[in-house]
């Protein structure tokens, strides 16, 4: 009994848990960690590239400008890293909001059942009938061009997915004996939903939320690319790609290539981490 609680055993246990058992997961964690660390530190030291307009425009990648410069002479590496603050944090924030709202609504829907469940399910049906980006486009088009509206739009687009997932698991949990026991001891439906159903149903929505982070980064960049998300000159990957599109015709591939690469690396990292989590928690 005492061995289990001892620090030695605990350390062994932790080391066991830290073993990822998957080289792809290592790569994903290191990539994402590097992107976040560089995005947090580099702009503090070198600025976000906006002021360095004394450079020549459209310089190809070189040692002084590893990602080249855009048509206004801004350093694309610095701008790509400055965009981490917006893109990654919004991706994570969207995923967390979707996780919290989606699984709560899903658990409540399953626990209450009846009319509440029916109404919530029909609402998710309506939202799921439109593809996420299209839905987000409609929402931003009606709310206005703004970073926050775009984030809210992406959140709304992803909520039904998690509601469905959480509800499916919660329906299974709802029929467990400990739920019957809790009801018997007089717990209200709300208490049952939050104390028993939600904690036992959250595993799958939690794994799914890493995938939501990945998709949210893609969708958010897509909205900015289409001009309804982050507005230039704020550094953001989607907006940077949009700005660089015209330069592609002049043979300058780098203004849109490197922001695209950042999107690919961060979205793929979240996906791989999600797969890894899925296997670990299964």
């Amino acid at each position: 009994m005492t061995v289990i609680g001892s620090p030695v055993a605990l350390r062994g246990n932790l080391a066991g848990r830290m073993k990822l058992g998957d080289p792809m997961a290592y790569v994903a964690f290191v990539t994402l960690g590097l992107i976040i660390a560089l995005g947090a530190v580099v702009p503090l030291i070198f600025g976000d590239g906006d002021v360095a307009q004394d450079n020549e425009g459209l310089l190809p990648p070189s040692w002084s400008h590893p990602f080249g410069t855009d048509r206004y002479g801004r350093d694309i590496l610095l701008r790509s890293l400055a965009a981490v603050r917006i893109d990654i944090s919004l991706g994570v924030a969207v995923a967390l909001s979707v996780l919290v709202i989606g699984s709560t609504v899903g658990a409540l829907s399953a626990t209450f059942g009846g009319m509440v469940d029916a109404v919530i399910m029909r609402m998710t049906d309506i939202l799921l009938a439109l593809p996420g980006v299209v839905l987000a486009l409609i929402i931003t088009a009606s709310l206005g061009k703004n970073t926050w509206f775009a984030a809210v739009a992406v959140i709304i687009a992803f909520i039904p997915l998690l509601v469905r997932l959480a509800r499916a698991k919660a329906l299974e949990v709802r029929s467990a004996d400990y739920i019957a026991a809790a009801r018997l001891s007089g717990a209200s439906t709300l208490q049952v939903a939050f104390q028993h159903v939600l904690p036992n149903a959250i595993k799958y929505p939690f794994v799914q939320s890493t995938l939501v982070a990945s998709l949210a980064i893609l969708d958010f960049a897509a909205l900015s690319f289409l001009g309804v998300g982050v507005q230039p000159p704020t550094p953001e990957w989607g907006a940077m790609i949009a700005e660089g599109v015209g330069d592609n015709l002049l043979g300058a591939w780098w203004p849109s290539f490197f922001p695209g690469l950042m999107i690919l690396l961060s979205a793929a990292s979240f996906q791989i981490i999600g797969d890894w989590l899925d296997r670990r928690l299964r």
Partner: protein
Amino acid sequence: MTLLNVEGLAVDTRGGHSLVRDFAIEVAPGEVVGIVGESGSGKTMTALSLLGLLPEGVSVVSGEASLAGMPFLRDGRVLRRPNATMIFQNPTAALNPTMRIGAQLDRLLAFLGKKGRGRAEELLESVGIGEPRAVMGRHPHQLSGGMNQRVVIAMAIAAEPSLLIADEPTTGLDVTVQAQILELIRSTVATREIGVLFVSHDMGVIAQMCRRVAVMYQGEVREFADVDDIFHAPGDSYTKELLASAAEQPRKVGDGTRTG
């Protein structure tokens, strides 16, 4: 004196299929009354209906029931929640897997307004758990089925119910543990004057636990009598068959191995 009195209880599915018909039973304080029958005979549905725990699509359509003189079911409508708790067939599934035992007990006691230092330990000691502190730090999956069942029993008696419904509480346990749990249930209810409805398909367990037993078949009580009478002078053809099947020895086949 009767503690639980049930008359004319009927349970139907939404489609009108009858699961339990004209069920009647009475339980005295401190008495263990058995309900025995094969799978699908309606014994569990009967138990669940008294607690208002019927699954969706199944409901009580008629019947009267009172507990300690207080009616809680009239004309098939539930008037109030009876002061009754339940012990389940699979004790590990009857505890929240995401919470430590101690946290579950504390939450229950707080909910019952009985929170106090050492209350949870006392409760666990009262069901024969020697090291309550160690058990309270564990999650249900880290404990044996027998230990979990003790915890479930502790939680069931925490509310000081006047009726306890035990739905096959030892079916999933080892034979040795089974005997301990049965003894625990018997001693616990005897000292606290709790009436017990003991649902089981095992005639042996019923004979050990109960003085009176109701034999159910296809939703009806075929016989409600003393256990001794049921065993020695079964008055009903189905009871006879049930006893015969319980007494049946495994058949030996040619190569010396045993079957069914």
